[in-house]
């Protein structure tokens, strides 16, 4: 249990650092560290498959692309645009609304029964696969369609750009 609190502390620390660092590349690096602590949380919950997939997809692929884009644009502290007061106020209002929503939803949730995991072995590959391909087949396939449509959109955008360049 103390391990959980230590890892949770690290998660919150790194996520705060993501927000408070000025340099966007540092932010992404702290975000990577945050995702790494998520992986540890999954392992503590005996969800090995989810841990490794989080590791591969978020730390290994998505964050590499984030870093890639930021390095390509080479954003530095000097080049960061000065934000006007109006934008800052809008940001505070939006953030405050999100905070209220989150607190409200946490309040609405009945957290009385510290939900005992029905099956601690559910996170292992074989069990997860069986559940995904029987009980949750429809949502699983629908989410893959969602990803496919995003991919088609990305290809379309890239293609259009090329044509205008050539012509």
């Amino acid at each position: 249990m103390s391990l959980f609190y230590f890892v949770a502390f690290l998660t919150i620390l790194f996520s705060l650092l993501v927000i408070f660092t000025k340099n966007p590349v540092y932010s992404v690096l702290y975000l990577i560290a945050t995702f790494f602590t998520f992986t540890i949380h999954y392992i503590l919950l005996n969800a090995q498959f989810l841990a490794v997939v989080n590791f591969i997809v978020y730390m290994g692929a998505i964050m590499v692309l984030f870093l890639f884009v930021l390095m390509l644009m080479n954003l530095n502290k000097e080049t960061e645009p000065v934000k006007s007061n109006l934008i800052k106020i809008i940001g505070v209002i939006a953030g405050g609304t999100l905070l209220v929503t989150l607190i409200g939803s946490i309040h609405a949730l009945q957290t009385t029964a510290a939900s005992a995991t029905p099956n601690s072995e559910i996170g292992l590959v074989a069990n997860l696969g069986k559940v995904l391909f029987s009980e949750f087949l429809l949502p699983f396939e629908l989410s893959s369609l969602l990803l496919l449509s995003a991919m088609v959109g990305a290809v379309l955008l890239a293609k259009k750009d090329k044509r205008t360049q050539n012509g």
Partner: protein
Amino acid sequence: MELAFLFEKLILVTILFVLTLSIAAYSTWAERKVAAWLQDRVGPNRAGIFGLLQPLADGGKMFFKEEIIPSGSNKWLFIAGPSLALLVSFLGSAVIPFGQNIELFGRVVPLQVTDINVGILYIFGVVSLGVYGIMIGGWASNNKYSLMGAIRGASQNISYEIAMGLCIIALLLVTNTLSFKEIAEQQHSWHWNVIYQPLGFLIFIICAFAETNRVPFDLPECETELIGGYNTEYSAFKMGAYMFAEYINMFVSSAVMAVLYFGGYNYPFMDNVNALLGPTWGPLIGVAVMFIKIIAFIFFFMWVRWTIPRFRYDQLMDLGWKILIPLAIANIVITAIVITVVDKL
């Protein structure tokens, strides 16, 4: 019992660590010797017999050279880059089984540090982390050539990871497990996976070349265009760390290929040999076989380096996206159809 278990793992990890380091060190020597042999030269022959002390001399040189941190660079990330590259390269060997269970001093010891049931995915994750060392180092150098190298490294790794993952899916259809130990056991004697997955193996080895940044895909450090790529600004031991990480990656990927496709520690007629030599010496022969396979793969890496010229960047992307990925998908479809038909018969 618990203490003995910890002790056993500690010894295993130490042996593996020292072994990985020495194989990486002697890979640098072997690379020069192989280059010399292929180009009809002599190669290093001054330090020790056949130049065998050359890696020690090189290591000493790297420690005593002046460390230069460019003034415009980002100091912490400049140091973090090579450290991360070296750290991550060591992680992979934890899940590789180097032999059958061996009987030592009345205890049965598995020759694998840990057998997690998602072993293949773990290796895949470690491989995808490997690019951070290159990216962070290249960016922190504050040099446009380093940055170009870093960005090339990132896009190359991501592109070839896809084809590599698709190969692994086809392999999983054959093996039905993600655990390295079970995969190794399934390939008992001569039932090696390369027989069932020849195309998958071909794509996998091409991707392994790209993931380890070896020639013909060493575009992140392409000397002719980018001076030295991501490690242009590095000197002394930080440079050595990057070089070492490359050789350790080569060792780990050779070991992975040996286990996944070439039977790992299995060899024909191993049952007869094991019956003859008993539970201690029999598995040791298996370990020797495993290392022969790994060394053969490392030799192959070097052979290709001195045979095939470097790809152009657009050719690299075309090969990855337009040839390897469609081929890997076709491989999955064919494998799935064959398995279904064979099951029905």
